[in-house]
């Protein structure tokens, strides 16, 4: 398991691994939004939590199809499936590796990019916290979508369409928590719901992902 995790992280960091893809996409979105909206700092600071959350979500989506597609193409997935690692463990580790190489960097740069969007001072902590709580769910749900579409040529389109509706609750509560935090309101309810979604998906979805992966490998 640890071997698989270190291998996946190493693969992501090496040339062509797509480590910077999500990050640069996030950067582009956040840099371009102020140009599109115009120089209205009050409006920008109002929409900043939503834009940052949306950017992080789309950046996450961008790298999902790599989770299983590369392993499927070069035959590693068949070999992993016949190895002593349980399939549930494989998908969990894959989701964790995806989060460490995509979600975690997004969480870390979000406060920096928040400056570009004139995020209110009170919002930085809650924005970072909400992303740290929510992005694991994005990775786990995305792994499920990737498992569903593994083996399909150019499955990216189908993957995005399948995963987007599943991302909606995370986005709603994540952005709501960041917005309330920025405006100084009570964040307990969205925080609890967001944490609940993340814990629920981490607990349940690996089993579903493993099941669909077994069917897709036939």
């Amino acid at each position, binding site marked *: 398991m*640890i*071997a*698989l995790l270190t*291998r996946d992280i*190493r*693969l992501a960091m*090496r*040339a*062509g*691994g797509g480590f910077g893809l999500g990050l640069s996409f996030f950067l582009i979105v956040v840099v371009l939004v102020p140009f599109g909206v115009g120089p209205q700092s009050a409006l920008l600071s109002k929409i900043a939590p939503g834009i940052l959350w949306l950017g992080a979500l789309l950046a996450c989506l961008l790298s999902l199809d790599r989770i299983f597609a590369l*392993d499927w*193409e*070069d*035959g*590693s997935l*068949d*070999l*992993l*499936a*016949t*190895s*002593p*690692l349980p399939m549930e463990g494989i998908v969990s580790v894959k989701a964790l590796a995806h989060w460490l190489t995509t979600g975690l960097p997004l969480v870390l740069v979000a406060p920096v990019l928040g400056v570009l969007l004139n995020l209110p001072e009170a919002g930085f902590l809650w924005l970072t916290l909400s992303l740290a709580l929510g992005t694991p769910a994005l990775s786990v749900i995305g792994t499920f979508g990737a498992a569903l579409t593994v083996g399909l040529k150019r499955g990216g389109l189908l993957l995005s369409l399948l995963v987007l509706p599943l991302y909606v609750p995370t986005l709603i509560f994540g952005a709501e928590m960041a917005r309330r935090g920025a405006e100084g309101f009570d964040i307990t309810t969205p925080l609890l719901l967001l944490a609940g979604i993340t814990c629920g998906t981490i607990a349940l979805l690996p089993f579903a992902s493993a099941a669909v992966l077994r069917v897709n*490998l*036939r």
Partner: protein
Amino acid sequence: MMLTVTDLSIARGGIPVLEGLSFTLGAGQAMVLRGPNGIGKTTLLRTVAGLQPPLSGQVDVTPESLVYAGHSDGIKPTLTVTENLNFWAQAFGNHDISAAIAAFSLGPLAARPAGALSAGQKRRLGLARLLVTGRAIWVLDEPTVSLDVDAVAMFAAAVRAHLAQGGAALIATHIDLGLSEAQVLDVGPYRAKPLDIEDFDGAFL
């Protein structure tokens, strides 16, 4: 017996390809599967490896004793030869990869990224993976593709050494491996009968 296949019927893409197939494989034995393209050798091996369920019949084998090697080697081009082998060794709970490197003379290539290897060298790396798994039954699909004569001899020697240690091997191949002791199973006679035309229509009515 390490592997017993009883009255097995298998399908690929919903179409039955082989039926009524039975054989056994014991410790120290090798079996070579032969048959024309498309007869279902790969499907048979994937069924034995547990990657897909049979239509009917039984495969009796301990899944933990088996290692499968398919058409593609599962090699990551950006990892070096050593990193690739180390990963598979750890995934199967082993650590020592020196024997595998020696058996397929990968020593001079050990520090190279696998993406820089030739097709035959990649195949040798893929076969070296079998040695680091420590599993008893090798299920191999066309293991000698793109290997030169010397490498085929290396492979045959590795299989012999494996059999001598009480292992077993089930190999689908078209070429002569020089394994005179291996049983040969021609799967041609087990070709599944074409679907009954009436049944065929029935599925659409």
